[in-house]
């Protein structure tokens, strides 16, 4: 068990090194992607007013600079198939979580049985893991309460829910979305 864990971890570390060796190609692409993203945001904010780009263009470049300072590792772009499968999953799950909370809040006797669960994630440090932690809070019955390295403390509203399975499912989907591999998951 311990060995397998270590093997997996070193695999992920190697994968990260691999990414940074080929960083230059990714860097150009990530600058372009961020440029498109921030321009789109500015476009939505200001509407069709062309004169606004006098401020907009410098603002976009400033945003690219700041975002590279904050998260300098250019990551591979999200996988398209991943996004397509994640969005419906996410919308469905968050709708379910709203209904779940509604049911529990309106139940005459409070239908809560809360507890804390600790979960070790296999996602590499960085945006994928942060995304994971933030998404947990929007899924039914779970709320990420703490993150120490790769240990996520999850607060659950009902200990009888299949939290472990839900988290693994979410983790796998995020791995696909972020193009990270989670080998040998089943062997554990």
């Amino acid at each position, binding site marked *: 068990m311990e060995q397998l864990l270590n093997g997996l971890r070193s695999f992920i570390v190697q994968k990260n090194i691999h990414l940074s060796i080929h960083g230059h190609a990714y860097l150009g692409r990530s600058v372009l992607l961020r440029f498109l993203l921030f321009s789109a945001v500015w476009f939505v904010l200001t509407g069709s007013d062309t004169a606004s780009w006098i401020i907009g263009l410098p603002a976009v470049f400033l945003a690219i600079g700041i975002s590279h300072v904050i998260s300098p590792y250019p990551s591979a772009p999200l996988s398209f198939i991943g996004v397509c499968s994640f969005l419906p999953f996410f919308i469905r799950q968050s709708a379910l979580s*709203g209904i779940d*909370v509604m049911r529990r*809040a309106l139940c005459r006797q*409070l239908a809560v049985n*809360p507890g804390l669960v600790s979960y070790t994630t296999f996602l590499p440090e960085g945006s994928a893991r942060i995304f994971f932690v933030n998404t947990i809070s*929007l899924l039914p019955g779970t*709320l990420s*309460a703490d993150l120490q390295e790769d240990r996520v403390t999850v607060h659950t509203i009902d200990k009888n829910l299949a939290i472990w399975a839900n988290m693994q499912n979410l983790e796998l989907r995020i791995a696909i979305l972020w193009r990270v591999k989670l080998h040998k998951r089943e062997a554990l």
Partner: protein
Amino acid sequence: MMTLLDNVGMLCIFMGLPFFLTGTVGLLRFPDIYTRLHALTKADNVGLGLITLGLSLQADNLFIVAKLILIWILVLIASSASCHLVARSAIQKNIHPWVK
């Protein structure tokens, strides 16, 4: 003049309202910080999602739709991040979760 799209949009908005109300009910009824956070983040986000969906269906042009979606995403990120921060500092302050 109400078209079909307008009506469906209105329906979505009406469906969103109960989520806001139960979010508040949960905030008042649930026993501790963590469970209240559950009520707050989840119910309100679904409510806001339905309202943005409804308003998008009624919007006059795609600009407004894009802006509505941007606002919704912004609120999603903000609420899940602040929910995590509050829960985290509650744990660090050794506030134990309520147990049945």
